[in-house]
């Protein structure tokens, strides 16, 4: 297996893909958003229970490749307990990682996605769930899509 490919499919990612965390619908969710990646058919719903400005609970449902599923799963573990502002900041860092491959030191597991940058067509897979989560946080009624200019 090439270095690029083993960087893409790191153990962290394979593990989250095989045993997704926080999968399913939270009954007490007070926010949710749908995201899709029209080019490849990936779909993702994110459910949040916001407690004031803070993410008390978070979960996802959806279908897609290993990268998109692992990203959604890992995201839920990272966003739980964060404020909206912290979540936005974290997405900024995550976006930087997947587009440049540069891993900031303190990024813990999110750094596992650095390998994505070598596969530009897969960046959308990694960011789909984040788009949905941020839309849910912002209360944006429009479904998130990885085809927007903002990606």
């Amino acid at each position, binding site marked *: 297996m*090439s270095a690029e490919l083993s960087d893409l499919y790191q153990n962290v990612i394979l593990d989250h893909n095989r045993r997704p965390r926080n999968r399913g619908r939270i009954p007490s969710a007070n926010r949710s958003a749908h995201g899709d990646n029209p080019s490849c058919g990936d779909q993702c719903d994110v459910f949040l229970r916001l407690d004031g400005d803070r993410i008390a609970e978070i979960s996802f449902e959806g279908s897609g490749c*290993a990268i998109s599923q692992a990203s959604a799963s890992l995201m839920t573990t990272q966003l739980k307990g964060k404020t909206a502002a912290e979540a936005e900041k974290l997405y900024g860092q995550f976006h930087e990682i997947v587009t440049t491959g540069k891993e900031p030191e303190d990024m813990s597991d999110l750094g596992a996605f650095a390998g994505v940058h070598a596969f530009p067509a897969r960046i959308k897979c990694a960011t789909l769930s984040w788009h949905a989560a941020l839309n849910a946080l912002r209360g944006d009624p429009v479904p998130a899509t990885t085809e927007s200019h903002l990606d």
Partner: protein
Amino acid sequence: MPSPWDRIRDEFPILNQQVNGRPLVYLDNAATTQKPRTVIAALDRFYAQDNANVHRGLHALSMRSTNHYEGARARVAAFINAEAPEEVIFTRGTTESINLVASSWGGANLRKGDVILLTEMEHHSNLVPWQVVAQRTGATLRYLPVTGDEGLLDLSALDRMLTPEVKVFAFTHVSNTLGTINPVAELCARARKVGAVTVIDAAQSIGHMPIDVRAIGCDFLAFSGHKMASVTGIGALYGRRALLDAMPPYQVGGGMISRVDFFESLWKPSPERFEAGTPNFADAVALGASCDFLDSLGRQRIREHDGRLARAAYERLAQLPGIRLIGPAGERGGLVSFAFKSVHAHDVVTFADEDGIALRGGHHCNQPLMKRLGLTSTVRASFYVYNEEREIDALVASMQRTLAFFGLEA
């Protein structure tokens, strides 16, 4: 006499390369085919010797260019056995051809209460244009069902659905996702009985089998050059002359008008009426060269070659654990489509690429069909004249490696 099949891979310069350190195995032919030397050379030669704008030109280059362009039209007309070259309109490809029919014929002939009959296996390009014209005219869409994973049209439902309100019946010749070859002549005959106009999407058949529009009995037939060993940017719409002559233009501008005033204009007859602006004459010449190339191989032989590879791949892949193959088990066009229980199509394709194998994964512009089958994506391997049995070995081996990586040893 040596057959052009003997050294066929040498005809395609692109095949002679390594991808990720492995020899390229190109199995994405349903998306686009590769181009033989003769076609690339025809394009080159045209630009290096004969290029000039066509029609209206009285100088030598322009007359030569016009002859090449109209010669290509006649060649394409002969390739599909049209009655006359004027029945062939050059377009960018299948999508534009179907937009032209739906907008021009559909816009002029459909009304509220009329029915547009499609099938559940249509590519977005033979579906969305009809949705748009349905919205515009008030006509209603109806879908002939697919029988499930086996991927056949449910012909038992056809009589019930082909009511007199059906004004047009549009369907694909070969499904780009299922590989199904539809009985187009029969479908046309049954549509004709209720007076419905027939539109065939031949994107996946034109380069793979003999096509005779008069034997099929269709009214319109749409196809793309890039899927028949030709270049991008060119394709055609065949239309029966009587229908074409009664249709309003589609795009308008230079070259298609017979008189222009400041406030109104008169149109030329077909095909000019439907070819506004400078046509893509150089690529049309390349399309003519592709017809020659395919006929030199023999289209019946191409059909057998591609079908044999697809059936072999189907049988070999069926042995893999957790695989779901869709489309007919018996005769099929040159492609196979499948999904694994636990590995997503995109991961499969990414791993195959690592092995130098080009596959396609996704919904293949067939979202409604996918939803109907309860799938979001499949992996598709599609074959063409230069593919070989050993490439199926490589495909199967790659699938095995991928399953092993994701912990699903064969």
